[in-house]
């Protein structure tokens, strides 16, 4: 992979595309869990543009995925902070699945509004920890590295986030 990074750093857009393409889907899913499907596209796209600008900072090819993830989480947290400063009713139902020639079963995200409401109640920092740990399956140490935090801080934010979610769904008293 290293030659691809070097080519991309030198301005080879095709090399850059090959470099980031394998990471596109996990990045998009992280973005969707952080800011919701509506804004996931923008956050992912901004992440890739930032990565293009800053690619020279990547020293090791095996760190690329973690590095992209860090950029995306920063972007996503900025979106969430901005949303908390300027609250809007942002969540719309996802469009029905286009089916084409035949009729297909309709499958939507289960109870997404309720979950989105619950996630929106978390502080962006808590949401980031919950998403990285439970959606991306990162260890607490990896979460800490991604967010630039100490592991103990990650633990406490995870605990707080989990408690808030359980409270929202009436599994635990406040």
């Amino acid at each position: 992979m290293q030659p691809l990074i070097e080519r991309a750093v030198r301005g080879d857009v095709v090399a850059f595309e090959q470099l980031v393409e394998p990471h596109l889907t996990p990045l998009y899913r992280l973005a969707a869990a952080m800011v919701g499907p509506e804004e996931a596209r923008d956050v992912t796209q901004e992440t890739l543009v930032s990565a293009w600008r800053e690619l020279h900072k990547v020293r090791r090819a095996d760190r690329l995925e973690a590095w992209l993830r860090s950029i995306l989480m920063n972007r996503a947290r900025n979106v969430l902070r901005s949303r908390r400063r300027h609250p809007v009713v942002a969540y719309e139902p996802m469009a029905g699945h286009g089916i084409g020639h035949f009729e297909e079963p309709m499958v939507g995200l289960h109870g997404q509004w309720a979950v989105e409401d619950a996630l929106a109640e978390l502080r962006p920092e808590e949401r980031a920890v919950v998403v990285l740990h439970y959606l991306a399956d990162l260890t607490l140490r990896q979460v800490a590295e991604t967010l630039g935090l100490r592991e103990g801080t990650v633990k406490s934010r995870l605990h707080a986030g989990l408690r808030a979610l359980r409270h929202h769904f009436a599994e635990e008293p406040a």
Partner: protein
Amino acid sequence: MNREQLRRELPEPVRRYFEEVARMEPPVDLLSAAITKVESEPRVNRFSLLPAMVAVAATAVIAAVIAFNVFGLKVGPFVGDDASPTPQGSPTMQTMPPLEGLPSAGTIEQRYSIPADAGFPALEAHGSVWLSNGETGVVTRIDAETGQITAQIDVNPNPETDRYDQNLVADESYVWATGADRTLVQIDPATNAVLERFDISVLIYRMVVSGDDIWISDLNDTNSVIRFSTTAGEVTLRRPMTNWPGGLAVAENGDVWVTPYQADDLLRLDPETGDQLESNTVRSFGMQILLFGDALYISGNQGRPLERFSIPDGRVTARFSQETRPELFNGRLYGLEGEALIVLDAATLQVVAALDMGPNLGGLLAGSDSLWIVQGTEILKVRPA
């Protein structure tokens, strides 16, 4: 702690939400849109000796990408009757080019009137084109030479339960139709009579004939792949699947290929036991698989692209950004996009020819010596270029 144990710590609605997010796919044009933005970015060059060379190289690369994707320049050899060669390197995403300037995909030879509710062209077999309408349950048979309607067959009058849709396949002796009430219907092409309705207790989605067997995917009921013996008149294998089996193809060696709905998988099954032999990652959520030589063409769903999967290479080798459901004619792939008939290069999935057909296209079928396209209340016989 594994993923499942980990997620048990979450409230149930959040756990389910995350599971579904973990299956989401990015919009097909996301990467290309990001790359377009990247291309417009001023590059901070850290290699002082190279700026001019880099600029020239990058411009050349960008120009090549634009030329291939926008102007539809041809890459690779033209594809003839044989299976298409597999391109090297990572798959590229072909996009729909402007139709102007493309060679013609064919000429309209004949227009035949059909009933407004005749449905889509499902099959050419036994000297006829067979149109199918799943809502009415009627199959309309048209003579392939004269365009005359020779029969309208009510596949299953007075159904008690619905069918998923009404597909047709044929072997040397019979036409087989999706019946209502979880049946498979045998039609005699000599008399147009329904000979038998086999209760197979599955909601048929796709059917593929392979020798004396019909392979069936049941997407929405028992979630299984079924093998029906046309000689024994009974189901000889039922294989439950973990996902919803949708697209189906049988390779020349008998292997059964399945693409589950809303999953990133392309599965290879043992035709004797139904055991899963192989799993590959695809993007398309494929609802239909077309086999050509040693390649599988998996039609996209929910905005996902058409993909070409090379069986010997075990990987996706080309993508086309549309959900196109291709038909194979004389070594070329034909599809309908918008109001156009398009031709895709079988190796690269690049659009290499097109024919503006106008509105109200209702389905495409590749026949033995022509293409059939339903348009409004007509079926058009198109001679491919």
